[in-house]
């Protein structure tokens, strides 16, 4: 019984962390058709911003979160203005942006490394304490992470589904020409999305580092998991990403307890690879092959 509770708690926490990183990634993928290989470094930037604000600027933790979000938004905006803006008219945008973001990822990881060093340290923004279910200690921090991911998913989905801006974003994702003909300023929409994605990444980074540690490569593993979620499920909506993230989290937690931590992710990849050989259209039967 204890093991089951522990697996569920661990699975929900992992799922929440993956959902947090998958949402920002899928948002700009859905609308711009761009894969951001630097998303992991955006998570790290969010985590380190929060750290800097608390430790170096000495500001109270409650102020650190909004400021980290602002920092993430600025990073997203700079990314758009310096790189994306000049690329998306190129016919090979989809592949070129992957290469560009690989460059951006190694650049930002090494800037962080230069500024803070490789030694991992603890995020000061943590909530101590917890309660017990039977023998199992449930830290409040885990509950906060799960709650934040649920709130973020609901928030993003609400904006996308029932606001004027959200409709414009979805319309731009479906057909850029048609969106322009409705009067949607698609460049502005792109810039807004990059800002939103950077801000969401900052929230994820703060949450992620509050339960693990801060390191320049802290975002790589969650980003990889987010990639797998996206590749298997074929992302169209935020809820899809959300469910897939929790399924993956539960699967990984189960694997960790049965096979051991080191085989959990490779076992999952093996499962994914064989599933895709047998069912190339994705596990949920979506036509991922012809998606636009």
């Amino acid at each position, binding site marked *: 019984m204890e093991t089951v509770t522990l697996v569920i708690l661990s699975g929900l926490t992992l799922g929440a962390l993956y959902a947090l990183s998958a949402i920002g990634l899928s948002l700009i993928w859905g609308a711009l058709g761009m894969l951001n290989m630097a998303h992991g470094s955006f998570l790290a930037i969010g985590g380190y911003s929060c750290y800097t604000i608390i430790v170096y600027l000495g500001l109270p933790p409650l102020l650190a979160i909004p400021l980290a979000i602002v920092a993430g938004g600025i990073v997203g905006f700079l990314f758009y203005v310096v790189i994306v803006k000049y690329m998306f008219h190129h016919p090979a945008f989809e592949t070129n942006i992957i290469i560009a973001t690989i460059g951006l990822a190694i650049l930002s990881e090494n800037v962080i490394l230069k500024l803070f060093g490789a030694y991992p340290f603890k995020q000061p923004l943590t909530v101590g304490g917890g309660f017990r279910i039977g023998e199992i200690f449930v830290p409040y921090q885990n509950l906060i992470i799960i709650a934040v991911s649920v709130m973020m998913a609901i928030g993003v989905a609400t904006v996308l589904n029932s606001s*004027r801006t959200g*409709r*414009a974003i*979805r*319309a731009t994702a*479906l*057909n850029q*020409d*048609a*969106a*322009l*003909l*409705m*009067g*949607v*300023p*698609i460049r502005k929409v792109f810039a807004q999305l990059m800002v939103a994605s950077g801000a969401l990444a900052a929230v994820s980074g703060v949450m992620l580092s509050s339960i693990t540690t801060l390191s320049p490569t802290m975002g790589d593993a969650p980003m990889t998991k987010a990639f797998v979620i996206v590749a298997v499920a074929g992302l*169209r909506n935020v809820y899809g990403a959300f469910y897939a993230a929790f399924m993956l989290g539960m699967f990984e937690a189960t694997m960790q307890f049965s096979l051991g931590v080191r085989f959990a992710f490779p076992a999952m990849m093996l499962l994914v690879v064989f599933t895709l050989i047998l069912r190339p259209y994705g596990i949920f039967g979506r036509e991922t092959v012809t998606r636009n």
Partner: protein
Amino acid sequence: MTTPILEIENLICGYDGQAVIKDISMSLQRGSVVGLVGPNGHGKTTLLRAISGLIKLSSGSIRFKGEPVNGIDANQIVGKGIVQIPQGDLVFSEMTVEENLLMGAYLPDAHARRHERLNYVHGLFPKLKERATQIASGLSGGERRMLGVGRALMSTSELLLFDEPSLGLAPIIIDHIYEVIKALKSEGRTLLVVEENASRLVDIAERIYLLDDGHIIWDGQGKDLMNDEVLMSTYLGG
């Protein structure tokens, strides 16, 4: 005579440096219906795309209500009051019918009046009200066309560019669409309607332009075109 609502002068444009529109001049009077006909692949859609700002001009000018609009971004041209109903419908396939219509009222002016506009469009196309919550990709061809028209009418624009309203539709639906065009004309809107075939336009259009290989080769009244056997058999298939 008042200033035309739309004036095109010596327009040249195309794709990849290849001119598709080779020197076109034309003008539209406010409140009129103007037809643009000609064989397929000779630049009709390209001309509409140029007016809407989706492609850049190589040379020439486009004026809307006396003010030049060439070089302005497509989304801003919509704001000026030129709305296009594109060919192939271009509805937002994964959004509901109602969400598609609301996209037509994206700009602030129309957005403020979206409920009123929605009632107006539902009045013209009751089908769209019935199907409000349905996903657009599940609609029939005729319903998609209605949605395309309805979406454009959500805006309060003065000039409508209509690309091949009768393409691929059953005659009964074409009749319906042309009824709506007549109604729009009586409301005082200006329409530029592109068709491959002139027959539907003859009764309704004040003026018809015949486009061939990027040039206007004839313009005048519909009945004169129908009576010109040479033009009819050469360009419009009888």
